[in-house]
């Protein structure tokens, strides 16, 4: 299983081991993990609630993984995205791309994250002493996705 959407935390080292142990042709593993930042433009946050669209989320992530596999020679891909209540410092997302050589693994990991940010149905709501607010989508994230469509 390459995609998981879960409330629980994940163990990065265990995930890398599970992905790479069965395939000794892998020469490069790139791992990205995203964490909850404490400081936002509105001030310090105490909690972040991640809402998602059950069913569509898994389907969208699997499509993104398929696209990455079509573009790069990948030996393994793993995507984990959490939902529910999170706090500053908590892990939110994990992307692992494994390949024979590093270029494919680096590029695929970046592609997976860029696509995930704009095409997987997750929404963040941050709450702190200043109140609670839904996070706005960033123009920079749209541009990061678009760059892969031009190459």
């Amino acid at each position, binding site marked *: 299983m390459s995609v998981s959407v879960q409330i629980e935390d994940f163990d990065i080292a265990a995930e890398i081991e599970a992905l790479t142990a069965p395939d000794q042709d892998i020469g490069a593993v790139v791992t990205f993990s*995203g964490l909850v930042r404490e400081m936002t433009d509105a001030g310090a946050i105490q909690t972040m609630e*991640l*809402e*998602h*669209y059950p*069913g*569509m989320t898994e*389907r969208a992530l699997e499509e993104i993984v398929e696209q990455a596999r079509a573009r790069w020679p990948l030996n393994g891909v793993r995507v984990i*995205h959490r939902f529910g209540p999170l706090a500053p410092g908590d892990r*939110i*997302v994990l992307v692992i791309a494994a390949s024979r050589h590093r270029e494919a693994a680096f590029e695929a990991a970046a592609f997976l*994250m860029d696509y*995930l*940010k*704009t*095409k*997987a*149905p*997750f*929404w*963040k*709501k941050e709450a702190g002493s200043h109140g609670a607010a*839904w*996070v*706005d*989508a*960033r123009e920079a*994230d749209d541009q990061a996705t678009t760059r892969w469509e031009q190459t």
Partner: protein
Amino acid sequence: MQILYFSWLRERVGEASEEIETQAATPADLITELKTRGGGHAMAFDDISAIRVAVDQQMVELDHPLEGAREVAFFPPMTGG
């Protein structure tokens, strides 16, 4: 047809989902219809440029045909990762 709302659309409408009978041909037509339902619908759909739509769990444009659709979801741009 099952209508789903997420994020601030859900909060403004006041419901996560509702089952409706509709002849709307596109999501844009459906929005026009939903805005007349009262409650928070008019406020939720006030700024159409901020709204994204998925039909049967696939992202589509607002003029996508709704024929045969079972589930239509409305939400703001995604902010995962």
